[in-house]
């Protein structure tokens, strides 16, 4: 058996962020942090994709995470990034636990559209709610870490390192989960549900567990983005936000727990460059990039690494 290199690789990436972050410009640190947040959401999406389920509604949990962070900051003056992420993921997990009883019964297009519909309900609720800032949303205070507020020059670096720690830690936990019998069931469910049931495992239970984990990760991602950007609005629950996560997941591939973060980083880079080059047609550039990825890398960016290994 080949040795599992993933934990080492994750540690190496973290070291690179800690060291490289010292020389990166502020805007790059910002992109890196947002990539960590989006990568967390996509990591959860990857779990569902492995089981053959495409969720067009991860924005629901992303938005719950963000508004939890915002609510904590506004109502209780809690700006600690770790507390915000923890609270965001817990609330998202709780909602997913309840909704999972419904969603775990559906497959294919029904699962996709039902998850989309649920996220749009949240969008509608927030838009109608004056207390939550309606369509404008509201601003958050600068983040603190363990009760310390870093100086303006260091806050981006500190948040980026904290984000990388959480993101890579989550990746390590998911990697471990994927090596348990329950975690391995995903591809089996995608291939043949009847066989899984006839072998004595519950497909619904497995999907429910994956769904809750995915929501937990999305909640953490949402809280992280809220504190990084410093502003939240209902667009975070809008279906195009979910679409972006699916976009990143397809770009990244499901080959490894690192792929979602790589995908998010590449997505952020393409986005930034496209916007810089032509602000009016950046969506077209993004579409072209996805098209190229699908045509030339149908298994996602991660296949660049696995193919080389096989050769």
């Amino acid at each position, binding site marked *: *058996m080949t040795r599992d290199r993933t934990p080492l690789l994750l540690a190496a990436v973290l070291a690179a962020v800690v060291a490289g972050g010292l020389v990166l410009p502020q805007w790059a640190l910002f992109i890196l942090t947002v990539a960590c947040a989006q990568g967390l959401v996509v990591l959860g999406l990857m779990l569902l994709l492995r089981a053959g389920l495409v969720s067009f509604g991860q924005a629901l949990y992303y938005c719950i995470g963000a508004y939890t962070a915002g609510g904590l900051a506004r109502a209780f003056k809690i700006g600690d990034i770790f507390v915000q992420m923890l609270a965001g993921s817990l609330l998202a997990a709780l909602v997913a636990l309840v909704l999972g009883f419904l969603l775990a019964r559906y497959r294919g297009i029904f699962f996709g559209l039902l998850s989309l519909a649920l996220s749009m309900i949240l969008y509608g609720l927030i838009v109608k709610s004056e207390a939550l800032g309606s369509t404008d949303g509201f601003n958050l205070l600068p983040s603190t870490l363990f009760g310390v507020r870093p100086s303006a020059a260091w806050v981006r670096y500190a948040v980026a390192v904290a984000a990388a720690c959480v993101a890579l830690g989550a990746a390590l936990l998911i990697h*471990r*989960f994927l090596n*348990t*019998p*329950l975690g*391995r*069931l995903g*591809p*089996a469910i*995608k*291939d*043949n549900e*009847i*066989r*899984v*049931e*006839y*072998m*004595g*495992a*519950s497909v619904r239970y497995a999907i429910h567990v994956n769904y809750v984990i995915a929501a937990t990760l999305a909640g953490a991602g949402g809280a992280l983005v809220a504190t990084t950007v410093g502003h939240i609005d209902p667009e975070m629950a809008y279906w195009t936000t979910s679409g972006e996560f699916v976009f990143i997941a397809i770009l990244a591939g499901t080959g490894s727990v690192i792929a979602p973060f790589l995908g998010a980083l590449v997505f952020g880079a393409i986005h930034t460059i496209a916007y810089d080059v032509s602000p009016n047609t950046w969506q077209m550039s993004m579409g072209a990039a996805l098209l190229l990825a699908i045509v030339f890398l149908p298994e996602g960016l991660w296949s660049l690494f696995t193919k080389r290994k096989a050769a």
Partner: protein
Amino acid sequence: MAAILDAQGLNKTFGAVTAAQGVTAAIEKDSVVGLIGTNGAGKTTFINMITGYLKPDSGSIRYEGRDITALSTRQIARLGICRSFQIPQLYSSLSVYENMLMALGIMLHNSGRGGFFSLGAPRVPGHDAPAEEAADRILGRFGLSGYRDKNAQVLPGGVRKLLDIALTMAAKPRVLLLDEPTSGVSAEEKFGIMELIIQAVKAEGATVIFVEHDMEVVSRFAQRVLAFYDGRIIADAPPQDALRDAEVRRYVVGAIERSARA
């Protein structure tokens, strides 16, 4: 000998079609029972009811004295009643070895081993070995070692059948229902494959119920035959007697031969 499985008065209709009427049969422990009948006679419905995939409209099924009629497929599988399929049900994107690991992994999961916090390679209950070792052992017993790293999707028909049955072995079945284990296998290979299957399964000490259309295979491997026609059991006897029965000759053997000639 004690009955391991006892079906009493099973009835099942699908709209106007009667798939089972008053099906009653007690299966003895460690026996090998052949189910025969034309297409639509009710053999697969019988298997589907025993494994919980279909619920009978009335009647009861007892397994080792326990009523299992209302249990789900999953619960019944966990009790040790497993099945193979007429059309092999495999994990087609995975290799033969990974298919086997998946089956053994589900055993680990159901026994509460191999969870998130467990360390090392847990031993699969009943196999007394880690999953990797048990997988290779079962594949070897079914003559599948040569296909170990092949993708399940590209396997020849006979090999798919064997893998389908090998997968059930992960669960250490007490009762194994084989739905047409030799369909789609060439006439020359049938006896060899059936011999291999029966030996491998008997080595595990399972009671076997198999559906078969080839009467030579039935007479050679079954100790007892249940002949189905129109949702009823029209004969329940050792093969030599059952195959001589006038009704069986008319509705089962003759019908199968006629359709084979057509």
